[in-house]
């Protein structure tokens, strides 16, 4: 299951949906907002999502991970809106009968999410500058 949230993420709440007496391993990943990126000090950031397609693509990734790695349940929650340093940007939980499957599934999901799911991050820097991350790859840097 995939969820976009405007509010502080609450992993303890999400874990409840994954509980399963037949599962021996649970792996979770949290992406935290770092205070530095590419040598610049970050004050806060903003995520926005193309919601309908993000949900479809994330659901597809979850399905792939379950099939590839024999995982049981996988949930993804991604924050949108304004985030402060150290807040959780994304939470992923994966369960499986054995732990190796849960590790593989969880890592696959975050790796794929980062390259496929239409969510964008804008970083705001101490020097007043800001920019959409990876837009140096688009050969243009935006200054507000």
């Amino acid at each position: 299951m995939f969820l976009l949230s405007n509010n502080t993420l609450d992993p303890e709440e999400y874990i409840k949906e994954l509980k399963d007496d037949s599962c021996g391993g649970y792996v979770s990943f949290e992406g935290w907002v770092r205070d530095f990126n590419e040598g610049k000090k970050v004050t806060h950031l903003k995520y926005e999502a193309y919601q309908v397609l993000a949900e479809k693509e994330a659901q597809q990734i979850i399905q792939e991970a379950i099939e590839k790695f024999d995982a049981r349940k996988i949930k993804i929650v991604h924050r949108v809106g304004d985030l402060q340093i150290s807040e959780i940007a994304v939470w992923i939980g994966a369960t499986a009968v054995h732990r190796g499957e849960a590790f593989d599934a969880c890592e696959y999901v975050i790796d794929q999410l980062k390259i496929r799911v239409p969510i964008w991050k804008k970083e705001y820097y101490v020097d007043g500058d800001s920019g959409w991350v990876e837009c140096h790859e688009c050969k243009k840097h935006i200054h507000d």
Partner: protein
Amino acid sequence: MKSIHIQYFAVLRDLTKVDEEQRETNAETALELYEEVRQVFGFDFDSINLRVAVNDSFSEWDYKLKDGDKLVFLPPVSGG
């Protein structure tokens, strides 16, 4: 003339200043429409660096536009 709904996100939206528009166009393909709006808003990105979604699914740049289609041009993603 076709009427196409276009949504803008992230770095593109910063340039368009609007989230979405309904555009009347003679463009035949998704790529032709992108080149049209690129001129209008001064996007500095080649289509090769973007992806396109039609009616909420990923699509190809040579997709043949139909009246009433909903398009989104997607900058490189950076979630997670």
